[in-house]
């Protein structure tokens, strides 16, 4: 038993430490701010965790292949508005709205992936450009005033509970389990790591590197669309720019979770812990009435430190 614990510990140190930090942070806040761990507050936090979690899942896939997706904010917002305007508050319309929105999400991701894998544009540049292209599409088509409303069903999913736990959160956990199996237990997952580790080696061992990259971006588009659609249920009123925070936050969560931003190293389980840390941190900052400006500064510092720590570890491992 002892050797088993040792084995797990040595294999998953980063992930375990990240969860411990999250738990410690939660404990710290609940002592500092009585009432923070109140059941209602936890429910709100778990909703936000789920929405960030979906985008982080997509971002993790992309980063594992050595890429980066900066276009999450407007894939998110575009999908959200597309759902709202297509269904316009009508539950029945969701039967075709949800598939259409998810397909649009996938197509946006595929567009990113094709530009990066087949045309050879640097991921940062490609997704930075497509981010504002998607913004332009939404704002241009709707004439700057997109409308519509989220149907009751989406609202129920986003804010409802089952046995006191948020439905959305449970849904995210379910999707995450599927994703963990996909990443850790299937050939596709191993190929993601292989492409991120050494693209040339992956190519020579017969992996269709371009296809793997495109699928990673497609999954990211799908997840952003899903997150955007569900977030519409949480928000009373949709607004342009509702997805902006998810650009930094998704990358920061992945980095905090110990996933190497160069690709090929790290795990989605770690990124999930990164989501918890960010959400708890967010809650702390807003509970302490810290303005948005300081939050931005803290995000920058946290991202930087997280990457610094994980890159130091990689360097040390290489020296060994």
């Amino acid at each position, binding site marked *: 038993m002892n050797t088993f614990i040792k084995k797990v510990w040595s294999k998953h140190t980063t992930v375990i430490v990240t969860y411990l930090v999250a738990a410690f942070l939660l404990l710290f806040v609940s002592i500092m701010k009585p009432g923070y761990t109140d059941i209602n507050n936890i429910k709100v936090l778990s909703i936000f965790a789920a929405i960030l979690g979906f985008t982080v899942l997509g971002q993790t896939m992309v980063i594992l292949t050595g890429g980066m997706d900066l276009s999450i904010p407007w894939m998110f917002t575009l999908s959200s508005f597309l759902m709202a305007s297509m269904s316009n508050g009508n539950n029945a319309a969701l039967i075709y709205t949800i598939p259409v929105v998810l397909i649009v999400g996938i197509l946006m991701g595929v567009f990113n992936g094709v530009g990066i894998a087949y*045309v050879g544009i*640097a991921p940062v540049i*490609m997704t930075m*450009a497509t981010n504002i292209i998607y*913004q*332009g599409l939404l*704002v241009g088509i709707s004439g700057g005033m997109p409308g519509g409303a989220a149907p009751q069903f989406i609202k129920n999913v986003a804010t409802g509970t089952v046995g006191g736990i948020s439905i959305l959160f449970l849904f995210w956990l379910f999707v995450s389990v599927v994703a963990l199996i996909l990443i850790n237990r299937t050939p596709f997952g191993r190929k993601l790591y292989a492409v991120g580790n050494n693209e040339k080696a992956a190519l020579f061992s017969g992996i269709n590197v371009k296809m793997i990259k495109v699928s990673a971006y497609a999954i990211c588009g799908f997840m952003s669309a899903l997150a955007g659609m569900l977030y519409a249920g949480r928000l009373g009123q949709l607004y342009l720019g509702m997805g902006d925070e998810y650009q930094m936050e998704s990358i920061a969560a992945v980095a905090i979770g110990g996933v190497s931003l160069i690709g090929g190293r790290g795990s989605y389980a770690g990124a999930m812990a990164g989501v918890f840390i960010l959400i708890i941190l967010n809650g702390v900052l807003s509970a302490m009435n810290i303005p948005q*400006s300081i939050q931005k500064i803290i*995000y920058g*510092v946290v991202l930087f430190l997280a990457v610094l720590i994980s890159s130091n570890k990689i360097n040390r491992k290489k020296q060994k």
Partner: protein
Amino acid sequence: MKVFKGKTLSQVFQENWIALIPYIMFILLTVTMAVINSNTLSMRWLANKSDATFTLVLVAIGQTFVLLTGGFDLSVGGIICVTNCLTAAYMGQTTGGIILWSVISLLVGIAIGTFNGYMIHKTKIQPFIVTLATQSICAGVALLILKIDGGNVSSDYIKAFLFRIGDIPVSMILIVVLILLWLFIKRTNFGLAVYAIGSNEKAAHLNGINVMKTKVIVYAISGFFAAFSGLFRTAQVASGSPTAGLTFVMTSISAAVIGGTALTGGKGGVVGSIIGAFVIKSIADVLVFLEVSSYWSSLVQGVLLIIAVAASAFGTLKKVGASA
């Protein structure tokens, strides 16, 4: 001419046609403007255009230095926000205050750039991440200084930046000076080091180039130009905005890439980027004249960047193919 060594004119043209694209685009756009609107091509129009493009020109110059070393600077947007807000919020009406806060702003830009360069080289974290982090920090600081657009800008300050000698604006003179300065720097050891690092960092290091020093200077230059751009924006708009600088990240990279600077480093130059900046502004102008709704402008910007990068990647691929 050294360029022609052992090559015919058509060979030289074939290998460098991509470098000519920005100039051709600029000429075409200017002609289009002249056709659409007969008021163009007067000295006054050129002067206005120069003033309007100058903020982008400055950022693009700084960004080009960084791109040439094979790096990235996403923090330029944040730096513009910070210096824009600093000057608009604190400078007041006195000459002393104006000079003091202008100098402080430029120093802030240099300091942030130096931090970027040092961290990127020391920690080996990708430039993109380090500058994204500083970008976020800067955006936060700018919001701390000014919550919403505002501030109080002295009219003397505005006059100093938008001053015209006859019909020639300060910005145009500065552009000429900066081009001359660039042509000089390009030939110095520092200029050579910048290109060498962008082409092959290891080889540059082995050849005795101080990679760390060069990188720090390059990012400091980018920070300086971004700060300067923020100062100019304060005069141009006569107010400070905590978010207005953020669009410059994309447009500065676009300008450099349209101007022929490769994102992989080691290829391109400042003159191209300046032309690239004018191309971007001209396209925006043409769209306005064609009465395209401004809602589409961000779409056009994004498409433009993708096309420019794709063309540049295509050109590089072709060259590699030809040499192999």
